[in-house]
């Protein structure tokens, strides 16, 4: 009896243990799959930033360049998809080429790659708006390969690849420096290499060249705001525990507080400076708030997140006219928003987030300067080789017709009817 009972107990224990073991496996599988699904959904949110940037840039540029802007924003994403897969990811994370057999601990290597790839695409796409309206399409394509295949991955490896900045304790949670400052300062290098649009500056005079469609810019900024929840939230990179959940809840709130604050301070600053609450400054202010909090969205909490974003919004309103005075023609504000505020956001982790301030400053410039130089150098080489800029006639005609042979907008217009007086022209 006793024996039986003990055996019974034993078997029972064995059985329950066996069950527990299967359960433990299932549990591990669930953790793994929750991590994966979450990471992929966050990545998809980040993909919304691609149409976000395309729309923002298209809206703030002239209507004769709308196709060109979409082409650049589509192609840099397509190129990132291939180049970062073939080589970039391997440079950044010391992984095999073509993510061939690469695996990560708590989710598939493919999911890890996909999430990181959309970050590379973001860094690349930041440049496209700043040089819009004058750059040869072919030159931009080559640059896209270089930045997503080499520049961004190499710089990124210093921190996210476990390199020297990681060793020094540099903090950049979701990439104020690694993604945004790199993109923004590469854009500055590019603008220095290509120069302003024709007619933008005459002597000391700055000529406004207003964007053609504020509705497009407005949709764009909403998509960017939404995408940023993926950008910052997903950077937690682990989701299947209570601690991670707490972290991500925090990240969402801090991200949104900073964006809201950036919108409000940019609005107010433009209202004071220019006497009217300015639209394009306000939407730049949202992005500034978002860029500012990106590095410290995990550790800059509540009121400090508001302050971080608020300062970002103000920086932008003051930087845009400053750049114009320096004749740096950045039609969409990519340099202030991503570059300058990217620096601020990185440093803010030292000010409000408990990181070492010196290291943060070092890290910020360790990204900004090489990005600036490499942007400038790559585009200067392109200038000397295949040429960087369309002809003045093409620029005035618009890149849609000059580069792509098609107009972006065509309203039904009887005057355009193709029946022809001049038979030779047919």
């Amino acid at each position, binding site marked *: 009896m006793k024996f039986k009972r003990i055996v019974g107990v034993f078997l029972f224990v064995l059985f329950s243990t066996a069950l527990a073991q299967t359960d433990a496996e299932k549990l591990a599988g669930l953790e793994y799959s929750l991590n994966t699904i979450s990471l992929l959904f966050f990545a998809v949110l980040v993909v919304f930033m691609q149409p976000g940037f395309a729309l923002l840039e298209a809206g703030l540029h002239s209507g004769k360049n709308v196709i060109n802007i979409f082409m650049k924003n589509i192609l840099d994403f397509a190129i990132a998809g291939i180049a970062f897969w073939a080589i970039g990811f391997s440079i950044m994370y010391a992984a095999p080429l073509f993510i061939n057999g690469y695996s990560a601990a708590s989710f598939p290597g493919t999911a890890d790659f996909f999430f990181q790839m959309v970050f590379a695409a973001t860094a690349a796409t930041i440049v496209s708006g700043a040089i819009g309206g004058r750059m040869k399409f072919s030159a931009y394509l080559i640059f896209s390969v270089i930045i997503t295949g080499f520049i961004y991955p190499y710089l990124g490896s210093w921190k996210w690849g476990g390199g020297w900045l990681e060793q020094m304790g540099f903090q950049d949670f979701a990439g104020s420096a690694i993604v945004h400052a790199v993109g923004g300062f590469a854009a500055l290098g590019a603008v220095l290499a290509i120069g302003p649009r024709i007619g933008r500056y005459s002597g000391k005079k700055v000529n*406004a060249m207003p*964007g053609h469609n504020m509705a497009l810019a407005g949709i764009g900024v909403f998509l960017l705001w939404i995408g940023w929840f993926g950008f910052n939230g997903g950077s937690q990179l682990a989701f299947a525990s209570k601690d991670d959940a707490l972290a991500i809840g925090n990240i969402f709130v801090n991200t949104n507080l900073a964006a809201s604050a950036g919108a409000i301070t940019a609005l107010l600053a433009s209202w004071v400076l*220019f006497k009217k609450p*300015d639209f*394009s400054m306000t939407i730049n202010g949202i992005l500034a708030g978002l860029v500012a909090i990106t590095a410290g969205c995990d550790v800059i909490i509540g009121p400090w997140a508001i302050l971080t974003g608020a300062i970002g919004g103000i920086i932008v309103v003051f930087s*845009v006219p400053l750049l*114009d005075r320096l004749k740096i023609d950045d039609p969409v504000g990519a340099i202030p928003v991503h570059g300058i505020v990217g620096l601020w956001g990185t440093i803010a982790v030292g000010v409000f987030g408990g990181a070492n301030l010196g290291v943060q400053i070092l890290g910020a410039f360790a990204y900004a300067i090489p990005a600036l130089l490499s942007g400038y150098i790559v585009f200067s080489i392109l200038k000397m080789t295949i040429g960087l800029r369309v002809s003045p006639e093409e620029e005035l005609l618009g890149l849609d017709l000059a580069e792509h042979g098609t107009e972006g907008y065509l309203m039904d217009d009887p005057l355009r009817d193709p029946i022809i007086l001049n038979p030779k022209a047919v």
Partner: protein
Amino acid sequence: MKLITAIIRPKQLPKVKEALFTAGVRGITLSKVSGHGGQGGMVEQYRGTQYVVEFHEKVRISIAVSEEFVEPTIDAIVQSARTGKVGDGKIFVQPLERVIRIRTGEEDTEALTPVAS
């Protein structure tokens, strides 16, 4: 016959149309034009840069009239288009040698009377 061309403020157009109708003028052709004259420009701004939009949207009204309608037409326009501020516009009167109604081939005065469909 005369061709009367008036450049007016877009905002006055409804009043001008009514006045013309009351004066018995039924056939008119309108187009959008851009006027430059003594009227000051409008200040707009974009990304911190102010600029002056110096053209003004105007509407051009073209009316072909027989002689007896010249004065009533001009009067109707002047009275309905006037605001008294610089930029109210001008009326030009030009000789018109022939008018042909495409639909019927009618010429001159007969061509000028609209036929309600």
